């Protein structure tokens, strides 16, 4: 085998320019795929992180039917005390969960005494909210999220700008409860809250106890439970452990709760899926490049070496050894291209990180991409390229092995 490699390697050196051209084609292909994967992976991770860590959490639990009508924030689909107890019992036993928080959401009228508009209000427990959504604080301007006091409000940035609302100003919120009773309360503006990508442009935050007061609830009700996992890659395992929740039935024998992952809740997940499909397409393009270039080179090297093949065959080299010689040659082309391509990819990713490429997404701008080359991705791409090189060499190698020595020796 050592000698097969030696001869194949020298044959590659013999047609040096062609070898360099073909390898560099593979190199460039591998590099594009890896750099693209690193960039899109960084973009995905960034966006997913933004969405889950500042707004959605990883998993949400609602009363059955809430998500379908989430746009009108229905108060009649809240979870009551008994139901909350059932949920917390199961959540506390789930080892994948880091923390969870309750939200009580409602639609209300928002007024600065001059004009009024509608607003979506999230009643939150500030301590638990910041624990479950670590990026929540970063969205808030002018206040510390965890110390959101009762009687104060975080106003959505859009509203604050449009209605010229300043910190420490006073506004009034008017809401109707499910019995039709209207109530209004004054709130002090504690700060503004930025939107994240996706829904939430008109989301304001107040303390959950204030919502209770505003709606004149006798006891606490909750619209959604937001869960943060220790590791988001265990999403499916964690979901499995939530299974008992879906088994609870109401009086009509219908499921009582619904459990959704962030993927089901965020439209961004479709973008992630599209990015994944593009990842695959770009890999297919790479495979074609490798297949065609190696096939082409190997067919050429068989044709220009017919007499040589005839000579070694006449001397007694078996067809299987001749096959191995050409397979090794194609394989080596693929391996060289992959190794150089991978090294260059690391270099390019390093340079991108040094320069710092920024991008805008939705209303957010100045986000810096920090691509990371995943070693698994490098391995997968390398294995694909090497296998394809081998496959591309099979047909020319077999052709060489099948040559009749008498005919081959007659060639010039």
């Amino acid at each position, binding site marked *: 085998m050592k*000698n*097969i490699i030696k*001869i194949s390697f*020298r*044959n590659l*050196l*013999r047609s040096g320019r062609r070898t360099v051209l073909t390898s560099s084609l593979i190199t460039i292909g591998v590099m594009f795929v890896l750099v693209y994967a690193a960039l899109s992976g960084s973009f995905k991770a960034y966006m997913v992180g933004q969405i889950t860590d500042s707004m959605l959490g990883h998993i949400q639990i609602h009363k059955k039917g809430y998500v379908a009508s989430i746009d009108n924030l229905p108060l009649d689909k809240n979870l009551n005390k008994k139901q909350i107890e059932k949920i917390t019992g199961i959540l506390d036993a789930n080892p994948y969960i880091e923390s969870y928080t309750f939200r009580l959401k409602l639609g209300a009228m928002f007024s600065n005494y001059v004009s009024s508009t509608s607003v979506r209000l999230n009643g939150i427990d500030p301590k638990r909210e910041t624990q479950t959504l670590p990026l929540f604080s970063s969205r808030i301007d002018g206040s510390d999220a965890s110390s959101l006091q009762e009687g104060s409000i975080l106003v959505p940035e859009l509203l604050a700008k449009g209605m010229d609302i300043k910190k420490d100003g006073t506004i009034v919120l008017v809401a109707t409860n499910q019995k039709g009773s209207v109530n209004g309360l004054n709130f002090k503006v504690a700060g503004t809250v930025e939107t994240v990508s996706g829904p939430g442009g008109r989301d304001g935050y107040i303390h959950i106890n204030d919502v209770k007061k505003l709606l004149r609830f006798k006891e606490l009700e909750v619209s959604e439970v937001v869960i943060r996992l220790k590791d988001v890659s265990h999403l499916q395992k964690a979901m499995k452990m939530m299974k008992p929740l879906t088994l609870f039935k109401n009086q009509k024998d219908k499921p009582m709760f619904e459990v959704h992952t962030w993927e089901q809740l965020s439209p961004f997940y479709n973008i992630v899926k599209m990015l994944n499909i593009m990842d695959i397409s770009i890999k297919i393009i790479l495979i074609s490049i490798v297949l065609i270039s190696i096939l082409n080179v190997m067919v050429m090297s068989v044709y220009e070496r017919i*007499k*040589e093949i*005839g*000579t*070694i*065959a*006449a*001397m*007694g*080299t*078996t*067809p*299987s*050894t001749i096959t191995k010689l050409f397979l090794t040659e194609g394989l080596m082309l693929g391996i060289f291209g992959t190794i150089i391509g991978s090294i260059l990819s690391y270099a390019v990713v390093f340079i991108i990180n040094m320069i710092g490429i920024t991008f805008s997404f939705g209303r957010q701008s100045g986000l810096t991409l920090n691509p990371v080359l995943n070693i698994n991705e490098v391995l997968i791409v390398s294995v694909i390229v090497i296998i394809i090189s081998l496959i591309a060499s099979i047909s020319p190698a077999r052709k060489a092995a099948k040559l*009749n*020595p*008498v005919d081959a*020796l007659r060639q010039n």
Partner: protein
Amino acid sequence: MITNEHVTKVYKMGEVDLTVIKDLNLSIGHGEFVAIVGPSGSGKSTVLNLLGCLDKPTEGKIVIDETDVTQLDTTALANFRGENIGFIFQSFNLIPVLSVYENIEYPLIMIQNLPQEERHERIMKLLDDVDMLDQKDKFPDQLSGGQRQRVAIARALVTNPKIVFADEPTANLDTKTSNQIITLMRNIQQEFNTTFIFATHDEKIVTEADRIITIVDGVITDDKRIAS
């Protein structure tokens, strides 16, 4: 010892069957220095290819030292050639990517798989025999035609073959070099008692041969032994 019985070779040229060798019966003993002569297209090369196990006859039997080579499949035939037969070609056919030493080593590694020390010993001896010791690290394109043919002879002999076939080995060489090569082969034949079979036009080879077989139109017309 090679024996041919009723060997016929037919090539298909489109619709037409072309009989190149007709009912060849031939027996060549160990250590003979045989020249096969005849006009171009007479079938000399075909006979050489058939005897050298590169080609299979359409009919008839070729037996080399009790092995009926017409019964072997491609791989077995390749192995048989690797063990028993050496070839010397008109245009030398050295492997361009291997050095002189590596060219001679090739059949020992790729075909016979001999251990390193034994290989080295044999190669050095043969390099000395063909007077190419000082050129052993050069590559074929750095050598003259005569030097290349010496390397090719060493390569053909390194496996200790019973028979060496040479198809026009001197056709690409000048007269002086041809004579040196022929003398070299003659010496080696006497030293190793190897059978040499040539297809040739070269008068010098013909005068050196123990036996001259003339073929015309695929039929042996003359077979004479020359007492040395």
